[in-house]
Every structure is written in structure tokens, then in C-alpha cells.
């Protein structure tokens, strides 16, 4: 199996690096929802645009947006 984002070999959906970023994305969504009342899609768009988002988190967010997940 290959990582859906970077195509590295991995037994999971994402490689270790992107899996970690994905975990962070999921965790922070709750914070964003409570704080600013954003939807999942709005949240992903905000994350992609944000200057402080790490490159791997941005790649996962873009991938999720592209696949409308």
C-alpha cells in the first residue's frame, strides 16, 4: 500500500509522517468547531490558507479537500 499523499510505502492509508499530521488535523477540528463554529470544509480551507500550518498537515488537508472527505 502507498501513502495517499506522498506515495511512500506504508501498511496504512498514510505514511507515518502524514498519519501524524492527520491525527493533529482531526484533533484540532474540535477546537476550531468550538471556538469559531466552522464546518469541516471551512476548517480544511482555513488550515490550507493558514501561514502557521505545517507542510505535511497542509498536504493532508489539501488531499482531504480534493477527495471531498
Amino acid at each position, binding site marked *: 500500500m502507498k501513502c495517499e499523499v506522498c506515495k511512500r510505502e506504508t501498511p496504512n492509508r498514510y505514511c507515518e509522517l502524514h498519519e501524524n499530521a492527520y491525527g493533529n488535523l482531526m484533533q484540532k477540528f474540535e477546537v476550531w468547531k468550538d471556538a469559531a463554529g466552522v464546518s469541516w470544509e471551512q476548517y480544511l480551507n482555513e488550515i490550507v490558507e*493558514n501561514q502557521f500550518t505545517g507542510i505535511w498537515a497542509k498536504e493532508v488537508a489539501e488531499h482531504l479537500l480534493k477527495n471531498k472527505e
Partner: protein
Amino acid sequence: MEKYTLILTEKPNAAKRIAQALDQKGKPKRVEEKNVSYFLAKRDKLLVVVSALGHLYTVMHIGKGRNYYPVFNFKWAPRYLAERGAKHIRAWIEVISKLAKNAEEFIDACDYDIEGSLIGYCLLKYACENKENAAKRMKFSTLTKKELEKAYSEPLPKLDFALIEAGKTRHEVDWLYGVNVSRALTLAAKRWSGRYATLSTGRVQGPTLKFLIDRERSIRSFVPAPYWSIRAAVDIEGSAYEVEYEKKTFEKRVDADAVAKACKGKAGKIEKIEKKSTQQKPPIPFDLGALQTEAYSLFGYTPRRTSHIAERLYLGALISYPRTSSQKLPPAIGYRTILKGLSKERAYKRLASGLLQIGKLKPREGAKEDPAHPAVYPTGNVPERSLDESERRIWDLVVRRFMAVFGEPAVKQSMKVTINVNGHRFYLWGRRILKEGWMKFYKPYVRTEEVALPPLKEGETVQPKGILREDKFTKPPPRFNPSSLLKKMEKVGIGTKATRADIIETLHSRKYITEERIVVTDLGFDIIDVLHRYCQGVISVELTRELEEKMERIQTKSEKRENVLSEVVEGLKPMLEELKQREAVIGEALSNAIKRSRMQERIVGDCPTCHTGKLMILYSRKTRKRFIGCTNYFKNVCQTSFPLPQRGTVKPLHRPCKGCGWPTLIVKMRGRRPWTLCFNGSCPKKEERRKRLEMRSLQKRNPE
């Protein structure tokens, strides 16, 4: 020639200075043989002062060839036999050996630390043929005449063999790790790809890179979270003063909005004015780490640069030995003599004279001690030659810090004004210095900001000026810079004060890291990935620290060199076995990483024509010429290409052109100053330059 005492030093400048200090007339005779200088000084007897060039001997593998591992058998040998670029060392060893034959007494005057002791020992043992037990040791912390004369007349009766043993072990352990793991990585990559590339890691390099990778991972996986704050100012006598809301952050936007709404258009009333005075103690003297950190934050000098500058100042007898971890200044260094010396320099005259008025001088000191040297301090000498800007800055910093440690505490007053706006409290802060104390000695390096407030009274009304909600986001952890990385290494106890700065530079030169605010490259990630999977011991901070502690115990004779070495060898064996078994997989991973890294180095920037490809430095197979082309060329999408100069080296600068915003390159040619190249033919800057040149040639032709 009559019999003489042979004095051995670590560096040529130290030899010159020692000879000058010990010669009766201060004018020793300089002799040159095989391009190696030494000095003849006359005192109670003839003294011959000769220097090494740092380490002349090193650890070397017993056996031939470099294409195999593990290698555990080694010997100490001249550097010219072990290293390719060290041929010049031969002449130094030959001259020292010749001088040793006629010497009747030997004195080791190398720097009094682990490296200096080892350098002196190797010279005495190998170049002077087993004179290590007969030699005396000069111990000094400055190269001033007074201290050198004292060190010569009262030498230590023998070398510090425990320190030497610790130094030997450190070099041997580093060699065992470095040569074996680096060979394993390099050979794995070479056998897979057929191409040679030096891949190295070491006992300290590995864990240091691991810190950087851990930080890089946190940064790259970081997801910011929103928070809000209130930004407000008040108008007092026509001037706006920024105030701080009682609650610094809000987790919900609606809460911040509610505050902003409640305060809008409402007047504020001064509820309370509180004044508090605090004392700020003087700073503590510099050890090497603190000097490097301060020089980085004030002047942007890397730790390695500061270390080199400090070394030059030491060799110029302007400051004491800089490779120290002491934060103490014992009275024996002679505070008053130093201050009297400094008062000869116009810039310090007033300050030094002021300190000399104090009855008893007592410095503020830190907790750290170093048995070999005190903290870094000025010798009191004034420069004999003109210092360059960087030397002048570091010297000034050391002098001012030295004076500041004797200063009185500074007294600061802070004023907190509480302003109530419709039930919400805002704070207005004022700060001023009531008594400068030590700060007057440490100017301009004191970091303090005064905020003067106008006279205010409780009950007075003030008008808020714009109360706004501010949208903010949590930030990723900061990137390490050379200074913060050095601090981290110091904190976790890996490396030594002499090697830490060089290790950071090695990581840069191996292309594992890049930029000043350190970014780990793909190659750095892949190296750590391989080591993490197959060779964890090499990147373990705990194991490295344990080893450091054991080596330090050798210094205090509570551990034996043989035990440490055999433990290292036993630890390396299974790791190297694992690396060998997985050579193919490792080789593939590393070769791909090297390939990616080489590609990355040639990428100039985004293609301005197709906007999807990258511009790269390419080589034509047909003409063998280099040019810039778009990566989409191979997909038949974009034909963009630009010519490049064919001579010299060309590297991407990763900085846009100021005229057109296109990517730029740096071109370096022998005998010319490097220049920045914008390859955009219609760059407005080029047009400007063309017009300027035309105008100049017109003016030449028609001078009136």
C-alpha cells in the same frame, strides 16, 4: 648548539608570544626550517619554543583499504599518514623531532584543556620519543607576559595524565563510531547506486540531528488553533498608550466580541495606580557557551565564528582562554590590575576608573566551575594591532561584561495603572530605571525598554481609543538556530565546549541541514530514518550522555579507558551486523535520498512560463553545456530555457530578483567577486543598467 629547554605549544601565535614573554629582551630570534618557524629565547638558559598546528597525531586504522567495516583495531599515527590533505604536517613533526634530540628539558605549554593536553602528550611521546614522563607542564589562562613568566618559573612537575587519558578515549571512541557507521552508510549507498557520496554520522552528530528532526516533525505536522485577544489603546494628553486587557486570550470568538462591544464608546476611569521597585542583579561572567549565545543574539555571529574570534583575541593576549565552562572569576586574576590596564583605553577609562574607586571589588559569579580555567575575562592589555570589526565587538563585549559583573544591582520601577471601562479592566504599564547600577558598564548591550507615562491620578477619566478584537493563531515551535541548538546540546550534556559548534557546521556541510533558522533536508531525514531503524544506539541521547559521563569519569580516575573502549566496541558490533545484513535496503533508501538532494540543489525556482514546472540547472548531453530548463520539458509541456555562464560555479540563490521577482542565481568565478544573476532577459533592472551604461559612454564621447 648548546643544550636547551624545548617548549612545545599548540599554535604558532602562542609560540611567538611565549618566546617574547620569556626572552630577556623580549626579542626572541625567529628561525625557519622547512617552512616551520620556531623561536630561540635567552633567559636563565636557552629556550627553544616550537609550536604544533593543532593535532599532529590522530587515530588511524591498522590495515589497508577503506571499503570495509567493522574496523576496531587502531593506532595513533601522524596525521599525514591518516588524512589526505595533511602532507604539510610531516615537516612540523620532522622539525620538532630534530629539536627534541638536543633538548635536555621539555615543557608542555599547550592550552590547558583536554585537547591541548592530548596535543602536548602526542608531541612528547611520538615526536620527541617518549619524553612524556620527563616533561613539565606550564599552566596559564592568558598569554600575558606576567602570567607566562609565572607559569614558566613555577611549572607543574608532570603532565595531567588523567586528562590525557580522557582525551585519548574521546578521540578513540569518536573514531570507532564515526569510521564504522559512516563507512556502513557510505558503502551501502555506493554499492546500490555505484556512485560515491560521503555520508557521515558520529557519536554526537547523530543525536544532534535527531533533535532537529524531532523539532522539524512537530513543525511540519503542526495544525494551528485559533484564539483571540483584545487590542486597545487610551488617549492621555493627546498621546496614545497601548493597554492590555485583564484576560490575555479568549478561546471563543464570541467572548472577545462581547468585550469589544461592551467597551465601545465608553470612557475609562483610573481605578488604581501601583508602583513596584525591583532590583536586577549584575550578569554573571562569560563561559564559552554564554559568550557564543550573547554574540549570536547581538551580532548574529554563529557559535563557531565567535569561538574563532575569541581564540584570536586570546592569542593576542587580549582575553583569557575562551574554551572554559567556568562562571567564576577568582581574585588571583588581579581585578585591579586588569581595570588599570583597561583604563588606558579611552572608551573604558571613565568606567574602569569608577570601579577602581570601590573599596573591595567582588564579582557576581555563576555556579559552573572549570578546574582548568576561570571564566572569560579581559587581560587588561590594549590591542597592539588594529582589530577588525568582529574582533573589536567581541573584545568590547568581554570587557563590558567583565566590568558589569562588579557593578551594583540596577533598580527598576514598574507602574501598573488599572483602567476600568464599563466593568472591564485594562492595564497600562510603565517602566523606568531608577538606578542604572551595572547597566552603565554593559551599555549598549543591555536589553531594557523604558516606557515613560505622564502624571496620572486615581479617579481620573481617560478616553479609550479603538478597542478591537484581534484574531490570532497558535504558532508551531520555533526552529533551532545555531545558538539555541548549542544551548540544547549543552543542556542535555552531549559534545564538549570545544566540539559543539563544529558539529553544527558539519551537519551543514554534509547537507543534512540548511538555512540559519535550521531546516532539516530530505537527506537528513533519511539518514536518521535509517539509523533509527537499524542503529538506534548512534542517535540515542541517553547513550551518548552516558558515554560522555563515563569519559568524564576517566578524567577523575574513577573509570578506565579500556573499559569504555571495550563497551563501545561490544555495543557497535550488533549494530554494524544489522547494518550489513540490511545493506541493500539501506543503500536504496540513501541513494534515493542523495539523488533527491542533488536534484533539489539544482532547482532554481518556479517556472514563470508554465507555472507548474520547476526551473532547473540542466546539462545538455549533446553540447555538454549547462543551461536553465523547465522540468516540464521532458513531458513536452514547456520549452522554457535560458542560457547560463559556462565558467565558474552557478548555484540557486533562492531569493527573487528585486527588479522582476524571478528566481536568481549566484555565479562564482576565480579572481572575480561573486555576482547575482537574473536570467530574465526583460528584467527592468537590466534595462536600467543598459541605459546607464549607454549614458556613460555618451558622456565619455561628448564630455561637454
